[in-house]
């Protein structure tokens, strides 16, 4: 196995779906490697209308290889939207809409959405919701855009690709009144009717017409057409009735990886379905990925850089001057080979993409590091891959950008199937 950085921001790793060659009776493992290089000219700048992107918590690639980006408009700071005032205070900029569609060349094709776009739009009426705003995005085979919100009173809404409202998932908790002082939410992992804190992450199983939601310490499955609850489970596949509603205890991160435990350790920060029908859950509170069948039977789990603190008192949030963030599993995508051999895991604490074998969890390589230059990351939060194997990433906090990493496969040319 060859792993190594070739040059600036390049990564080499075993090519996805590597082939076996036979010569004179001997079996040779082909050692072609996949290589990635950041594309500093993607997306194309400047955006129209003096638009500026904001925090990017999630992005996806649709069936036409278009990249759909969630940009949280209310992350904007006064020094970023001076052109929005009348008269303009500065030459640039105006905050971009919440939903942006790009092509693989970096052209902006479409933009719509933002605060109060619909009566159920995320964080309705809150001018500064921070991370509790627009969050998860999925684009289905028909091209409809599904968007979740992660504030109290939020849910999932479905739109056409042009932004026409189609459907609301419901299951909303109460929305606080403006200025209302809020008490911390208490977990109720047995309640499948409402999501008091909104919905952060979800995915669709379009063949089964099901929506998967991760919330608190559980995975819940709903009918994606009617919103009716179907089934759910907790960490290691335990039934909903056995999930506790207590805070997850801290651990001493300096003495080793997070302790194994039956219960999920929030935050659960992604859910995705693989081609072979498995459910992958980012368990950020344990630096871990847990894998299940669609019926909730536990399959396996593996750590992702577990020397990183995953939870506890030494975890800082946005703007913290004391501690950095915690947890290593912010989101993931599957490699584009037919068997999805690898997971590419966005780690916003180490600011890397970890590439691990999807079956064994074995580390195959990494991309990026903490920084502001092309190919580096500040709080990488979103990751997606197109059909040619190119990687797209999104950053939150003050990162506020998307990047593209081109699969060069050694000769600078992207291919539909890099192993061919």
């Amino acid at each position, binding site marked *: 196995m060859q792993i190594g950085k070739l040059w600036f921001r390049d990564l080499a790793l075993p090519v996805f779906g590597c082939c076996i060659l036979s010569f004179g009776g001997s079996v040779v493992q082909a050692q072609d490697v996949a290589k990635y290089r950041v594309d500093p000219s993607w*997306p194309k700048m400047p955006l129209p209308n003096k638009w500026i992107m904001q925090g990017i918590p999630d992005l996806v690639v649709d069936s036409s290889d278009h990249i759909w980006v969630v940009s949280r408009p209310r992350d904007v700071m006064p020094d970023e939207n001076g052109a929005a005032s009348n008269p303009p205070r500065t030459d*640039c*900029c105006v905050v971009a809409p919440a939903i942006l569609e790009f092509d693989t060349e970096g052209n902006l094709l479409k933009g719509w959405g933002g605060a109060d776009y619909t009566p159920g739009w995320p964080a309705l009426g809150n001018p500064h919701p921070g991370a509790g705003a627009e969050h998860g995005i999925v684009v289905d085979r028909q091209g409809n855009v599904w968007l979740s919100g992660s504030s109290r009173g939020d849910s999932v809404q479905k739109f056409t690709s042009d932004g026409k409202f189609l459907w609301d998932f419901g299951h909303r908790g109460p929305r606080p009144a403006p200025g209302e002082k809020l008490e911390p939410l208490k977990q109720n992992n047995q309640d499948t009717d409402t999501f008091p804190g909104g919905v952060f992450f979800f995915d669709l199983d379009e063949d089964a017409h099901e929506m998967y939601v991760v919330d608190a310490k559980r995975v819940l499955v709903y009918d994606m057409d009617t919103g009716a609850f179907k089934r759910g489970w907790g960490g290691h596949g335990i039934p909903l009735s056995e999930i506790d509603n207590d805070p997850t205890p801290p651990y001493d991160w300096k003495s080793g990886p997070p302790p194994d435990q039956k219960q999920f350790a929030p935050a659960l920060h992604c859910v995705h379905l693989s081609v072979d029908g498995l459910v992958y859950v980012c368990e950020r509170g344990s630096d871990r990925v847990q894998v299940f069948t669609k019926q909730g039977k536990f399959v396996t789990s593996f750590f992702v850089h577990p020397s990183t603190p995953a939870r506890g008192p030494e975890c800082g949030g946005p703007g913290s001057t004391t501690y950095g963030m915690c947890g290593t599993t912010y989101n993931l995508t599957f490699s584009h080979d037919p068997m999805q051999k690898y997971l590419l895991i966005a780690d916003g604490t180490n600011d890397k993409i970890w590439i691990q074998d999807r079956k064994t969890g074995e580390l195959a390589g990494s991309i990026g590091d903490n920084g502001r230059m092309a190919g580096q990351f500040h709080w990488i939060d979103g990751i997606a891959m197109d059909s040619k194997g190119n990687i797209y990433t999104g950053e939150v906090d003050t990162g*506020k950008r998307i990047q593209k990493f081109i699969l060069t496969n050694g000769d600078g040319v992207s291919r539909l199937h890099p192993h061919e």
Partner: protein
Amino acid sequence: MVSILDRHDGTLVGSFGGNGRYADSSTGSMRLQWTRKETSAQARWKTANGFRNLSRLTGEYRVDQAPQVTGSDGLTTS
């Protein structure tokens, strides 16, 4: 933003850049030519993505109206 001013009279002749975090591969804008007699070499600014062709150095130091197209910032670019 980088503004380009005439050193003697302060006339704004162009600008490039803007608020953001990206390498901007668009052409920098300059609405007036910067020329001098002894060379016709082009002045170029190299960014991470390539070259910016802002002006031609073709004559003595004087400001001429150049063949223009409108740039994205409302100025014009040659």
